[in-house]
């Protein structure tokens, strides 16, 4: 550690190291793709070195370094300060756990080397984006993740690439919006540097810049309207991908930028129209995501809708522009990265043991997989917002900010909390409680391996620890990094909010019991919501893809393309038919005129002379 800090004082070696190390390790992992043990050692040791480097930067005094890179102000400007160093550390810690899980999970698969290669290249890009003080260069690293995202989603899916295409198109669109937003911001601010931009007022063109940037950032985090590739990925992407990307890393990156947009780049005023718009986006994401999660029968799909929904809380909190909301959003991001990764990991463990994550095919695993069950339970309690787990405290902060801003958004968030609890009650009971049920052809199963349990256990315990000791993340991590002096740690300040939240949880339990009794099955416990008056049609429309932004985008592009083809045909007709006809017709006419008549020739000559005379007169 001391050596690393000493390196810092010498210059910017460590900054480069954070980008170059993962890139080199990625290549090495791919070269040694045939050998599991060297791969495991390389992955874990380099992820740990990355974490140590991040911690070193976190402990160092803030500093900045610039290197010549691109033209027109695109210099490679790195800046370490409390907030970026904190996110580097969080990313490094998350990466250590997810890479350990991934390398163990994929140990028998041929694609393991390639997958880990993509993981490390992504880490290099993420580190680059977090270190960048230049918005354009940050975009370079940020958008570069598209390549690895596409690559990872193509693994084992080269014959059926629909998810990869969907992800590339949606994330690509989000990134292009971000590009426009960044360019507008840079032009308006007159500088490309984060550190030099003084919170721009959100008016006129700047409002467009703000909106484009925020949509791009939220899109990376998996929020609406660029979310619909995530449930699709749950069906065919490798489970470690879900753990790493929609689960943790993309959330960290997306929310990091969202917070910086609101706190550093733009002056988002509480109660302003733009604040309301952002909160609306957050609330719609919460409700839209969780409503779809409620009716899923597959663990990974269900979790992926929650991955979308949980972003809504973060966006809602940040959108309030109140310190308590921003703090709540950030804390929720950390908590979500922890429990969502762990939940995906438990789904992966079950998949590894049973061969499926379809809740219709297995159940009652608690006795055979007690540790996985324990991890799931802790994380489910956290995501449902049960005290004293971490999710409870972050949600309360978001609720607090939402209520202060607009009651409607608070009620929307409460509705989301209700449905979250209902869907986890369903999933938990089906998967772990009751009698053991195994998929066809499977006679027995056992607990998952230590390599998979280790990261799961660490994350599950963290759910409890960060809840009980929330002073540390709230005050010492986020509060300090954002310069928020008010204290929001400890037990929630508003008893009324806590009572309402607990009542919502109780209501969810009642609803679950009612659903079970009505249908006679825990799996269908939420189906009465699906069949409720008015909701069935909406659900059916959603299942048919009517609310899918990807479908909108592709349909719109299709209509536009048809219109362009129409124009194109007319242009081709002009050149291929009309112009040819006119030329040939003129030729024929001239041919006919060439009949030997002297008077006609004289007339033509006079006409020509008159034309030349006119030109001369005009020119003189």
């Amino acid at each position: 550690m001391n050596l690393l800090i000493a390196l810092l004082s010498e210059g910017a070696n460590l900054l480069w190291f954070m980008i170059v190390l993962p890139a080199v390790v990625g290549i090495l992992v791919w070269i040694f793709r045939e050998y599991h043990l060297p791969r495991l050692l390389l992955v874990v040791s380099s992820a740990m070195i990355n974490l140590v480097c991040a911690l070193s930067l976190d402990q160092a005094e803030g500093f900045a370094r610039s290197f010549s890179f691109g033209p027109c102000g695109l210099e490679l400007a790195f800046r370490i300060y409390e907030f970026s160093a904190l996110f580097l550390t969080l990313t490094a810690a998350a990466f250590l756990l997810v890479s350990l899980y991934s390398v163990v999970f994929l140990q028998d698969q041929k694609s393991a080397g390639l997958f880990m290669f993509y993981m490390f290249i992504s880490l290099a890009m993420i580190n680059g984006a977090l270190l960048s003080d230049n918005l354009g260069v940050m975009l370079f690293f940020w958008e570069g993740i598209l390549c690895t995202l596409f690559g990872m989603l193509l693994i084992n899916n080269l014959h059926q690439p629909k998810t990869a295409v969907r992800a590339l198109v949606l994330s690509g669109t989000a990134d292009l919006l971000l590009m426009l937003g960044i360019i507008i911001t840079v032009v308006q601010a007159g500088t490309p540097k984060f550190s030099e931009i003084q919170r721009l007022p959100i008016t006129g063109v700047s409002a467009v810049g703000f909106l484009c940037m925020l949509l791009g950032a939220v899109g990376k985090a998996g929020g609406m309207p660029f979310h619909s590739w995530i449930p699709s990925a749950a069906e065919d992407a490798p489970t470690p991908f879900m753990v790493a990307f929609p689960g943790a890393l993309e959330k960290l990156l997306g929310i990091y930028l969202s917070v910086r947009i609101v706190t550093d780049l733009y002056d988002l005023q509480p109660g302003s129209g733009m604040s309301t718009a952002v909160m609306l986006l957050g609330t719609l994401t919460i409700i839209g995501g969780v409503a779809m999660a409620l009716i899923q029968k597959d663990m990974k799909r269900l979790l992926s809708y929650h991955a979308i929904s949980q972003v809504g809380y973060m966006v809602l909190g940040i959108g309030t522009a109140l310190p308590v909301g921003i703090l709540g959003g950030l804390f929720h991001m950390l908590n979500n990265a922890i429990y969502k990764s762990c939940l995906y990991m438990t789904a992966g463990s079950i998949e590894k043991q049973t061969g499926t994550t379809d809740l219709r095919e297995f159940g009652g695993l608690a006795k055979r997989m007690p540790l996985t069950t324990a991890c799931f339970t802790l994380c489910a309690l956290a995501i449902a917002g049960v005290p004293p787990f971490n999710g409870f405290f972050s949600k309360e902060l978001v609720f607090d900010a939402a209520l202060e801003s607009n009651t409607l958004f608070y009620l929307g968030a409460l509705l989301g909390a209700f449905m979250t609890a209902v869907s986890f009650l369903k999933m938990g009971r089906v998967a772990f409680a009751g009698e053991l049920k195994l998929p066809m052809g499977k006679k027995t199963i056992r607990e998952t391996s230590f390599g998979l349990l280790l990261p799961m256990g660490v994350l599950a315990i963290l759910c409890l620890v960060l809840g009980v000791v929330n002073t540390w993340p709230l005050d010492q991590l986020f509060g300090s990094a954002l310069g928020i002096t008010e204290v929001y740690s400890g037990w929630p300040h508003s008893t009324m909010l806590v009572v309402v939240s607990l009542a919502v949880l109780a209501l969810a339990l009642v609803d679950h019991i009612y659903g079970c009794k009505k249908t006679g099955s825990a799996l269908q416990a939420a189906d009465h919501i699906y069949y409720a008056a008015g909701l069935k049609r909406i659900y059916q429309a959603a299942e048919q893809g009517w609310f899918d932004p990807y479908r909108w985008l592709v349909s719109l592009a299709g209509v536009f393309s048809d219109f362009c083809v129409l124009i194109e045909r007319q242009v081709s007709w002009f050149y291929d038919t009309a112009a040819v006809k006119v030329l040939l017709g003129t030729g024929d006419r001239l041919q006919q005129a060439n009949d030997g008549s002297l008077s006609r020739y004289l007339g033509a000559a006079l006409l020509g002379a008159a034309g030349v005379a006119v030109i001369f007169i005009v020119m003189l």
Partner: protein
Amino acid sequence: MEQYLLVICIFLPLLGAFLLPAVGKRKAKLRNQMALFLVAATFLCSTFLLPALHSGSPLFLHFELPLGLSFGFYADALAVFMALAASLVATVIVLYSFGYIKEEADQNEYYMMVCLFIGAMMGLVFSTNLIFIYMFWEISAICCWRLIGFYREATTIRRANKAFIITVAGALVMLLGFIGLYGETGTFDLAAMKGIAIPSWVVVLVLFGILSKSATFPLHSWLPDAGVAPTPVSSLLHAAVLVKIGVYVYMRMFVATLQIDEVFTVAVPALAAVSALVSAGAALRANDLKRVVAYSTISQLAFILLGLASGNEIGVVGGMLYILMHSVAKGGLFLCLGIVEHNVGTKDLTKMGGLYRTMPLTAIAFLFCAFSIMGIPPFGGFFAKYLVIAGIVAEGKVLLASFFIIGAVLTVLYLTRLFVKVFLGEATFPQVKEGTPLMVGSALFLAVLSAVLGIGIRVPSGLAALIGRGM
């Protein structure tokens, strides 16, 4: 003596081209090697022009002619940048042609025209006199006509004629513009015109030539039809030489030399926006491999024009980088499609699929090039797109920038569709094999170069920045 590097750059391919048929009659292999030498030497000579450029005294040659006329060659940053980009990609294309064209008749004509084409391009970029620019412009049109009509079927000949007639008609209108310019300035020498404001009707006349050569809506119709040419020729037209001539002349005349009315900083980008969107939309519906990429070229040329016409240094630097990155990536894309078409025997997208199984290297090369054109980092296309959009936003034209963002989204859509339809999904041609090592190597070289130019953006951007500063 260094000045004569310029003469070598231009006249080595231009005159050497005429030796190729004679050599080819006796030894085909020697002809191929000689063609490669001519183009590679042109690239090498272009690189030798850099030291003088960086020392601040670009090479310059001037010749007096009878009747008070004169002409000259000038190796400033803009000319050298264009020469390097064109000759580099052309060298790879000639190398690739060894495999692609080896079984065809009329190879002597092919190699002669390719070298002549490069020579004309070199002559055009280094010339300081409008009449010589026009002369080289028309030489390129003749080469283009013969190369598009390389296969002698009736459709091929008709389409070659179409390309020739549209571009030459545009050039004749441009010539009228040049004469008008002479009327205004009393000279054809570009150096003597520096900073002179010219009337808009002259600009409009010259624009006819530029837009027809650079296949900009509505004068673009010949380019999608030119897909009947052999694929290396398509690559040459789209990536290295032909369509870049138009944007180069725009840059040389209306950005680097003359002053034009403010209205053109709106009109040209607006026309470019229409061109970008209409062609991108058409690309999304086309089912012919080469038509998709041809529409893509039209669309991407609009981005270049946008940058150059933005009216500020950022946009100009972006436009110049776009020329380079598009040349490399589009060249690579065509070479990949050439391998596919050559081995599969069809250009119909709907009949293809799953070629990644048998052509993994071609698939990777294609993807890299496609990513660069989409503007995804770390490929070079990212910087070009970013700066072009930044250029237009810096002028306060956010709405126009939004149209180009839509164009960029459509680019992602049509290139992804193309990649998926050709390389992914169920295999429809399981027996097809990967291309020859030389062909695949050429495509991979350009693909990797796209990434190298992105990560090492400092190198090309140094020269582009020099051009920008000179505006």
